């Protein structure tokens, strides 16, 4: 409060007034539900009858739930695969499109389009592409001589890679746009100085571009990890968590327990675990950032 007063001075009344719409929406649709979910996670609640307090029961059940174990493993695989891929490819695309090549506006739009396409529509189209019998992907694979084409979404081995491919395709453009903005903020005189020293392209990339880009990289890393943990629509449309739970991830499992099995307490407990994991990872990132993120310009 003191800090707020120091920032706004005697205008605090006006400040609060202008913040009101956002504050009310945040309170009603985010803050209160999050706090409520915390309490619901200690209850059994089937949505219709009043909840009953059960202490840590939901959490101990989660520990012994083999499907939850599988869900956690799937989520970890998804995050570990999508985050480096979408960041790496996003950075490559940004570096390529930052060099003033011909038609760069077209490519920027082309790479960014998936990010603004409705996930539901994209997931549907990709499901058809992955269709093992009629799909374009397997048609292409058999044309280049692959005999044993994968069954993609029907296969326990290939369903997760398929979802990962679509997720990366969708998010690369977003990472690219952020990296592009970061690249354009790097001062040109740094490169001029490097040119005077006859620095090679690689060493300019390594000693100037990447360090100067690190605040952007840090931001992209944090939001990519958070976004990956929350994957839902792709799974919902493409596989419904199947086959045999091969693509069941945390948020989908929360949805299943809450809105298919009406176990709101259990779903809330899983949501709290998700919250704790994301919070922990983000905190670790913030505390270790001074080792590699350079804010000086």
């Amino acid at each position, binding site marked *: 409060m003191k800090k707020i007063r120091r920032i706004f001075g005697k205008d605090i009344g006006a400040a609060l007034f202008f913040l009101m719409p956002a504050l009310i929406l945040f309170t009603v649709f985010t803050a209160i539900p999050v706090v409520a979910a915390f309490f619901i996670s200690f209850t059994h609640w*089937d*949505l*219709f*009858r009043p909840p009953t307090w059960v202490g840590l029961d939901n959490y101990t059940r989660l520990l012994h739930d083999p*499907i939850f174990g599988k869900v956690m493993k799937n989520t970890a695989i998804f995050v570990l695969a999508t985050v480096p891929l979408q960041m790496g490819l996003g950075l490559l695309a940004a570096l390529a499109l930052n060099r003033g090549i011909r038609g760069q506006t077209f490519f920027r739009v082309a790479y960014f389009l998936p990010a603004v396409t409705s996930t539901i529509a994209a997931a549907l189209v990709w*499901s*058809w592409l992955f*269709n*093992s*019998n*009629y799909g374009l992907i*397997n*048609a292409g694979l*058999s044309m280049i001589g692959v005999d044993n*084409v994968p*069954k993609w*979404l*029907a*296969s*326990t081995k290939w369903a997760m890679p398929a979802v990962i491919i679509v997720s990366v395709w969708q998010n690369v453009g977003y990472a690219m746009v952020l990296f592009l903005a970061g690249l354009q903020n790097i001062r040109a005189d740094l490169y001029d100085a490097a040119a005077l020293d006859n620095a090679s392209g690689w060493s300019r990339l390594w000693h100037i571009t990447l360090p100067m880009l690190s605040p952007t990289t840090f931001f992209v890393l944090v939001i990519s990890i958070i976004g990956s943990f929350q994957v839902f629509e792709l799974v919902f449309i493409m596989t419904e968590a*199947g*086959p*045999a*739970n091969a693509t069941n991830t945390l948020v989908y499992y929360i949805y*299943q327990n809450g*809105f*298919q*099995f*009406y176990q709101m307490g259990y779903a809330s407990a899983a949501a709290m675990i998700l919250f704790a994991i994301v919070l922990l990872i983000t905190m670790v990132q913030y505390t270790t950032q001074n080792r590699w993120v350079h804010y000086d310009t």
Partner: protein
Amino acid sequence: MKIISLASTLVALATPIMADTTVSFAYWGDPAELPPFERLVAEYEAANPGVTIDVQHAPWSGYWTRLDAQLAAGAGPDVFFVTNVPSYAARGALAPLDAHINASNFPINEYNQEALRPHSYDGQLYSLPRDNATLVLYYNKDAFDAANLSHPNDSWSWDELSDAAKALAVSSGGRTSRYGIVTESNNWDVWVSQNGGSIFDDGINPTTFKLDEPAAIEAIQYIGDMMNVDRSMPSYLEASQSGGTTQMFLSGQAAMSITNAARLGSYAKADFDWAIAPLPKGPQGLRSNVVGGAGFGLNSNAKDMDAAWDFLSYISGAEGQAIFASAAAPAVPAMNGNPMVQSSFSAPFAEVFLSETDNGKLTAQFPKWVDLQNLYIQPALDLVWNGEVDAATAIGSIADQVEAALAQQ
């Protein structure tokens, strides 16, 4: 809603003679399915001056989110269209109907008794089925004639079906351009009962898991083999990606289709000749079909219970059932013991639908069924449908977990 009920209460207090009642009624349905609902409401209002039916319609996809939220808030429509009845009854959202049925002499005996079972919970009836989702075998006559195959008839059993499906399947370069047959994903249990198997010892009060016994395993493997050995039937996932029974049969991508009367409307637009046959018999000559369809239930928080029951008993009575049975998108009536209802069901091949309805057999319907299916049974069956594991292994691997979950209930 609150304002309407407050207003109607005030009106009722002020003018006791011209009492004005509002009954809210919620249902889902595509535009093609709505006319009978609209007609029912109009005719009921005409016959009952002073009663207003407040209609709350939503498409299937948005219906449940809204209904669940309304019920959770202790509100919701007085009369509503519902499935998974035991789950709603167990959580106290539905009012038991038995007392109302007895008090008003409702002709419950004219209903198919087996069709009432999935609408009951703990010995009480909680909703009245609108229809029975009876399955039949639709077949493309042109495809059969072109392949010189004799048409399906009521003496067919599994062997004839899978032989014909295999003969009708067309593939080239490892890709199938026409399957012999396409079926609905949620009806695998019909094959199990046709083979004399079952999912549980008792579909309503289960204590033992029976899907791991030979008769059931054999049925599951029979389906799996059509998908992965004969390649005469698409896996359920592939079928749904290809538009399901509607699209695949209509576009000629499947020569036969096992589905319900709801497809009559879309199949009418086919550019080939088709007909309907009963489902094939199991290897031992057993016949079986699905039982159940959505029903109409009474909100346990209904403001005016008697008025709500009166409306419910109208839409689920002979007149209401006749309107649903005679609609352009006809529903196979669940009240098939009533002559007027039976004669108003005038769908093409009506006699096949009616005789198949008598073979209906309940396999499972209890509060935890949705959970067990999604958590254990569906994931295990996925592995059979995609050909990764055989039926005995897949189902064997979940038997203990399902038994443990049943014991917990």
